């Protein structure tokens, strides 16, 4: 008898509409650590996977944007709780993917979990910060409230495969949007595993959809897609970002341009407000005109 068990390899799959499909194309590609050692085969998504993900995200948008901000906060906090329980797995994957030591990777995972908590706290506070009553010269209440933009495509950072990913996805869904995220091309494992955590965190299926593959191949149809309302280009290089922004202009998508960012720093709220639209309502105050009529 041999001494060890046969190892059980994990089949990494996409996360779309709350399910774990393989790529529609049936393709996979090899993922290695920074030194070139093979880690896993992961799905190489096609543009049809991107299309399916947008359909799933659109379907989920009504429920998620209509949920109370308090409820969204609870669910985001739940994600942090679930991640805490599977920390070892993520430490291992982050260490392998990014070539970090165990302790460095543990710091990264801790920071990512804290980031979920940060945005969980913001869900029911952001409206007070960016909305409010506006003084106007007339007998009206004038109120501005932030509303989610809609379906947002996120091109996740290429280098920071987990903390970076959480830092770009969490604020977008905290604001009530639904997301199609293109994972880091070189290091997609933590992103694909995050799908398993999201699926068990009461997050409705379709709110976050994770695609792995060639960033350019998946992001291009998403940027041109008429049913996508916004795109975060953080993980796109200069050439690709320009190309995607041009495609995104066709239906006036809200675009968040790539910028130098230190994901370990205090995240602030600018990513939270990037995909919020302001709705302003004028409402008569009650006393109207000479007749004294009132609503």
């Amino acid at each position, binding site marked *: 008898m041999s001494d060890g068990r046969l190892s059980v390899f994990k089949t990494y799959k996409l996360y779309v509409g709350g399910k774990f499909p393989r790529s529609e194309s049936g393709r996979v590609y090899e993922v290695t650590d920074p030194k070139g050692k093979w880690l896993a085969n992961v799905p190489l998504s096609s543009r049809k996977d991107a299309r399916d993900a*947008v359909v799933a995200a*659109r379907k989920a948008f009504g429920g998620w944007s209509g949920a109370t901000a308090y409820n969204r906060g609870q669910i985001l906090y739940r994600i942090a709780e679930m991640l805490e329980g599977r920390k070892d797995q993520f430490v291992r994957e982050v260490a392998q993917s990014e070539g970090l030591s165990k302790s460095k990777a543990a710091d990264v995972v801790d920071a990512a979990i804290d980031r979920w908590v940060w945005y969980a706290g913001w869900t029911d506070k952001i409206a007070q910060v960016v909305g409010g009553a506006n003084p106007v010269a007339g007998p009206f209440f004038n109120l501005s409230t932030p509303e989610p933009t809609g379906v947002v495509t996120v091109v996740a950072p290429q280098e920071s495969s987990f903390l970076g990913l959480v830092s770009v996805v969490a604020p977008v869904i905290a604001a009530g949007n639904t997301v199609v995220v293109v994972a880091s091309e070189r290091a997609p494992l933590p992103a694909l595993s995050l799908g398993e955590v999201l699926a068990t965190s009461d997050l409705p299926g379709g709110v976050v959809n994770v695609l792995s593959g060639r960033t350019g191949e998946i992001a291009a*149809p998403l940027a041109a897609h008429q049913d996508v309302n916004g795109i975060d280009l953080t993980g796109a290089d200069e050439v690709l970002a320009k190309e995607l922004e041009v*495609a995104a202009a066709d239906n006036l998508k809200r675009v968040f341009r790539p910028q130098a960012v230190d994901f370990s720093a205090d995240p602030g709220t600018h990513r939270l407000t990037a995909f919020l639209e302001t709705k302003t309502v004028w409402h008569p105050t009650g006393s109207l005109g000479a007749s004294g009529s009132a609503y």
Partner: protein
Amino acid sequence: MPTTAPAFADVTASDSTLRRFLHGLPGVDAVGLEGRAASLGTRSIKTTAKAYAIDLAISMIDLTTLEGADTPGKVRALAAKAVNPDPTDRTTPTTAAVCVYPDMVATAKEALKGSEVKVASVATAFPAGRAALPVKIADVRDAIAAGADEIDMVIDRGAFLAGDYMKVYEEIRAVKEASGSARLKVIFETGELSTYDNIRRASWLGMIAGADFIKTSTGKVAVNATPANTLLMLQAVRDFKEQTGVQVGVKPAGGIRTSKDAIKFLVLVNETAGEDWLDSHWFRFGASSLLNDLLMQRQKLATGRYSGPDYVTVD
């Protein structure tokens, strides 16, 4: 009374000869039928063939609204969409017809004046068909008087399942007579007929009685058009034409929502009945939401980028 195809005069001579004929039809191999329908559904239709299929499917739609809440405004909106499905692209074909309840026929007719789009009306106490024959006939006459070009009747499933085939036959004949020159579609409600054998029998019964179209279902029950039951009906119309020279149309209705599904049905038509049926005169889709998906696919082919529900009308 319209005449039955001479080949079947002896079949319809009496209750027992009719039963003997229908029960003498070969039994359906359910596994084989579903397997065949599934394998034809795997065909890959791309590029120019896809563009052709999408336009053909649009031209075959009976754009339908059969709700208690139908208003004249809704019917007019639907009619406008039938004539001009995609206002941003005038090369889009019109749909085949608009399908409404009899009391809305006049409204639809008025709204479609000057176009090629036909008005189809469900009748005969649709969808259940539970009314006396005179009431059903009155329903049909009402629709015809209002200007309906096509009548979609339901068969009496109760009588059919009880084995009273002659009653079903006589009813179809009576409705056919009342329809005059309007084309008659006979709805079997396949979801209520339980077995594939029954669907085959109903198909032959309908065709012998003079149906111009045989139609799967009302869209009001749990199981509507499926590839398998449509395939079965396509085999029936093919065999009927071989035997009598009379061509009968087929209309699957209900549950067909995506372009992909519609193209699968067109493959079934081409591979089973043949090219003669690839025309809106002989094959129809009873659908409403299908049109939007076809339009979005059409836009995708034209522009190369995926379209979205913001770019088609909500109805």
